[in-house]
């Protein structure tokens, strides 16, 4: 397993509080994303654990784009990955953010 931890700037997320949310499953070519409160008011935190080695730069690029696109500061994303493609990673992150922030409204 390869581990990756990142803190990235992002716009402030909509609301505070909220129960943790998990989206996706750990299955070949898929991943699970756990969203909780965490990080600082202007940054979001990512913890990735992946079964595929050597793609740190790709993860960083995917997460940077996500953090820049969505207002997710103050959130922590934990990922268990079993070889998902960037497309699937992006989709799960979006779904997770939506579910977490949507659930707060």
């Amino acid at each position, binding site marked *: 397993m390869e581990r990756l931890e990142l803190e990235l700037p992002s716009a402030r997320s909509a609301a505070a509080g909220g129960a943790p949310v998990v989206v996706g499953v750990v299955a070949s*070519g898929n991943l699970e994303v756990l969203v909780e409160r965490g990080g600082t008011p202007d940054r979001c935190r990512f913890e990735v654990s992946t079964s*595929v080695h050597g*793609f740190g*730069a*790709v993860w960083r*690029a*995917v997460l940077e784009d996500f953090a820049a696109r969505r207002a997710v500061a103050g959130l922590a994303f934990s990922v268990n990955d079993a*070889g998902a*493609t*960037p*497309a*699937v990673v*992006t*989709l799960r992150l*979006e*779904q997770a953010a*939506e579910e977490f922030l949507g659930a707060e409204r």
Partner: protein
Amino acid sequence: MSTERGRVWDGARRDRRERLERARAVAPERWVEAGRVTALLEAILRPGDRVCLEGDNQKQADALARALARADPARVHDLHLLASVLALPEHVELFERGIARRLDFSFSGPQGLRLAQLVAARRIEIGAIHTYLELYARYFVDLTPRVALVAALEADAEGNLYTGPNTEETPTLVEATAFKDGLVVAQVDRRVERVPRVDVPAGWVDFLTVAPTPSAIEPLFTRDPAMIGEIQILMAMMVVKGIYAEYGVRSLNHGIGFDSAAIELVLPTYAAELGLAGRICEHWAVNPHPTLIPAVESGFVRSVHAFGSELGMEAYVAARPDVFFTGRDGSLRSNRALAQTAGLYACDLFIGSTLQIDLAGNSSTATTSRITGFGGAPNMGSDARGRRHATEAWLRAGREGPPGPGAMPRGRKLVVQLLETFREHMEPAFVERLDAWTVAEKLGWALPPVMIYGDDVTHVVTEEGIANLLLCRTEEERADAIRGVAGYTPVGLSRSRRAVENLRDRGIVRRPADLGIDPRAATRDLLAARSVKDLVRWSGGLYDPPARFRRW
């Protein structure tokens, strides 16, 4: 009669008579017992002969292939084998045993690995790897077979052949051989009193044999909807909204794969919601894909002409003669040569997947370890320069493309490459240099094996969006547009954000959001059928899937 000023004008005919004479000792009748077929082939073949061994996508002259592979290499050797699809181990055995030496073919599929090994060991000389239409064409020009070994479903006592739903290329092969004084040997599954329809007349066939086991047919064009993922559905939505609706694509061909199956399955849902029924996807050159059933049933599909059939679709096709081409007996009439022609000349769009694509849009399925060949995609995935009839889609594509000499108005075929940026195991699909170059260098070929040439490709669709290459005016723009949809592959990551934003403004790169598509809406709920059983239900119980696709 035969000579004029000493020159022989009917050498092939005389040769044919000699061969038939030799055969008489082995096979006094047209019908030959299975156990005597090898002896027959030894009698009618001469070393170095060009022999066409029928091997289609579905149907294989497998009994004849086995019989030939058992021939005595001292009598039968150095044959020049012609075959569309090299699928059977026996095909490769012919070369391993020295029975055949040279090969002209189109597609090798499961034997790709052994083929590559034989080429490396110099046990096989490859003339060329063709596209289907190209190979058929050469049968009538410089590769006319001396002997054709073909497969049919049934024959009557006289020798009339019935090919059933998988006619595929039998008429083409027999035509090329029989009318140039060649010999035609046919294997059939059954000898019957009366064939339901005559696909090849008895007069064009010399010998017949009943195959010990029916010719095996694989369900190659069946895709289980259960295996379609969200990303494929997202891409399907983009294709429907950003290309089919945009251009008004009425006639088309779909390559086989889960990507295109996803498109077929969102027609009755997503496309219908967009009000596209009756406006897109009416006429198809395509095999009867089971995943097409919901689109047929919901009124999208008006006609289908097929290269070959598909296992389990027999009763469904027979019950929908207004849609499918069928014989009087009710079974599908397929014809690969004609369906390929239809796909090339009469379809506005081809869409298919690939393994690798470069920054010029050239795509290839070649890898360094196997020789797989082409099949039919290049014929349909190329602009038909001989086309003259106009349709809305064709004209619009032509208008978008760069102007030709003298600004002459002209249409273009839409050729769409549909692929995820990464394949399995995080293999990038976008590359600076195709593996095809390495293959060509290694094997000393003049041409890298390219499936679809970049200058024929009009759109590249990935989960990142659509790149419209028609609108690009320079090589750099094309490369930037392709990088723009190449995602997080090394090729994609090296893009200039500004260049891509610029292309987005011009509509050359379109993201899902630009098309009004929310990726989170791409769920399996959009599939008109989520399982094979759903397909059976759509068909009213007419579709009869093979056991391996059932969960009941």
